[in-house]
């Protein structure tokens, strides 16, 4: 076949595209299993009842979530159904309040506010917001902040009050805790470790 003939390249375009689509479909089927709740990379929603950490794994050579022992959220243990209901509500809050056009989730979104992928693990909740709000626990401090962010500014870029109810704010806190347990292949690197490996 003459490579100067358009037909040669037409055949190349069709066959290349077809092969790539087939490969993508197979990879998407496999990935869908991994990213489903309870899959290899995404924990059950009831993980919000457990301690969650983030440590460097010398085998994988990247930071990975570490799921620890019991740690009730808001002093309560949620079964999978209750946790799912909480997550459904949280996602509706996140979408209806347009959070992604200031923040990023897994690095996707807008860049005006900090990335929320591992926000639950941020030392700022203990170091800054608990003293500022007077809350006794991290989750209480997070709820107080989310319900009235301008009241607790940390710098000149402030988060507006998006009029979250207490239930809305609790759901979002639970969502952030669950999201911090998702295995993101080491993103973000060195979170909260300031460059030091444990």
């Amino acid at each position, binding site marked *: 076949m003459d490579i100067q003939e358009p037909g040669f390249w037409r055949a190349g375009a069709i066959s290349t595209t077809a092969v790539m689509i087939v490969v993508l479909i197979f990879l998407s089927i496999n990935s869908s299993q991994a990213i489903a709740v309870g899959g290899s990379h995404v924990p059950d929603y009831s993980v919000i009842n457990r301690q969650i950490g983030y440590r460097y794994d010398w085998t994988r050579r990247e930071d990975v979530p570490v799921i620890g022992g019991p740690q009730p959220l808001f002093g309560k243990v949620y079964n999978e159904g209750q946790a799912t209901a909480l997550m459904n509500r*949280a996602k509706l809050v996140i*979408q209806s309040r347009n*959070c992604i056009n200031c923040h*990023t989730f897994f690095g*996707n979104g807008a*860049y005006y506010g*900090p990335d929320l992928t591992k926000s639950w693990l941020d030392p700022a909740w203990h170091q800054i917001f608990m003293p500022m709000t007077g809350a006794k626990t991290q989750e209480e401090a997070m709820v107080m902040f989310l319900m009235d962010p301008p009241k607790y500014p940390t710098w000149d870029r402030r988060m507006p009050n998006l009029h979250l109810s207490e239930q809305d704010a609790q759901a979002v806190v639970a969502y952030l805790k669950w999201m911090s347990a998702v295995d993101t292949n080491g993103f*973000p*690197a060195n979170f909260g470790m300031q460059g030091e490996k444990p």
Partner: protein
Amino acid sequence: MSTAEIGLYRSQKLALRYFTAAVILFGVMILFGFLSSLYYLHPSMLFKVFDFNTSKMLHIDTLVIWLLMALMGSIYWFLPKEIGGEIAGIRFAEIMFWAFCVIVAIVAVVFIFVQYGHADEFSLWFINQGRKYLEAPRWASLGIVAVLLTFSYNVIGSAIKRRKMTGILWVLCLDLIPLVLVYTDAFAAQTNMSVDLYWWWWIVHMWVESTWEVLIGCIMAMMLMEIAGTSRRIVETWLYIEVMLVLGAGILGLGHHYFWIGTPEYWLSIGGFFSALEPLPLLGMVVHAIYDAGSHHLKNTNTPAFWWITAEAFGNFIGAGVWGFMMTLPQINLFSHGTQWTVSHGHFAFYGAYVCGVIAVFYLARQKYTGIEHLHGKGWWWGFGLLNFGMLGMVMALLLAGMAQAFYGRAIGGSTLMAFTDASQNAWFVAGMWARTGFGVVFALGYVALVWDLLAIRKRLPQAAAVSSPEPA
């Protein structure tokens, strides 16, 4: 109705309406882009009244809509000539244009004055879906689907009705299938963020880095035949090569968005490898442009369109290809992802790949509308120079700011709130933000010069040249 307008097909008159709407929205996009940049310099500006997320949303959504309108208008412009007559379903297309405008206007009013709702399905249906680029509420997304289906019917139905299927038409018709199909994810509300982002990227990536690239490839092919007299055999051969490389690299290049969203590790290798290949088809377009220009000794019938096509070829290769490659290898993306570095790439890529291309079509349409045989002159240089200079300046400023974030905020600071805050107060970041706004003003002036020049073409036209073609253009 002008004498020149009489010589146009109804489809081309519709294209002119699409171009007018696109140019207006282009201006709105710049306005909200400029406003969004000011929040970085004056964070208290309009606080609680009109916050950053609303401004940013209007900036990126008008970007998508004006480019979509310009791309659709370009097809409506070239299609009659390609099929040798009026398109099928022109009446539906005309109705859907006005429906499209009404949808955009209502959504804009809701975004500006309502902004957000309660955590319920009503908000998703009627106020804001809160998914980047897909914020339009569901009712409006349904309307966009209807517009896209009508557009697809116009193209495919015309080819069938006229029993004419050129190579360009084949590519175009096949491209419309994924263009419409992937948009069906615009209604989803997945609780699981990993699943949500997985399919969200199918729309965003498959539109911007695949189907739109093919669409602009078809438009550029028809454009080159029109203004440079390039043979169909050459443009179709290059189009097939571009499709092969764009989709060959771009479909699995989707993987570079799957590094960090909870997907398996194999995406790091697949995404890294195929995104490294993604500049190749864009390099092919540069070779194509230089080849065509050289073979015709830069002779053409529309100088501004010719130079905007050349800018498109280089801008696409450098902005989408090189700038993308620079930050998508996983080892770099781990730190560059989600910083102003991404914004730098995004601006350069959209501008190079699409904005330059559709501006070339605007000039061609104005030439045909006014009946000028050869469109040359000097006025267009202002728009060309200021827009390109402004964009390059913004891209470099954002790169500077993004690198400061990647190094200080992510690599050293560890991405926490305090690391983010520190990096955002870093002198390089602050300087980058000021420079971005300054070059944004230059870009806005370029927009004004472009619009002025497009409108002035008719005014400066010598009466002798202002004759319409006896046949439709």
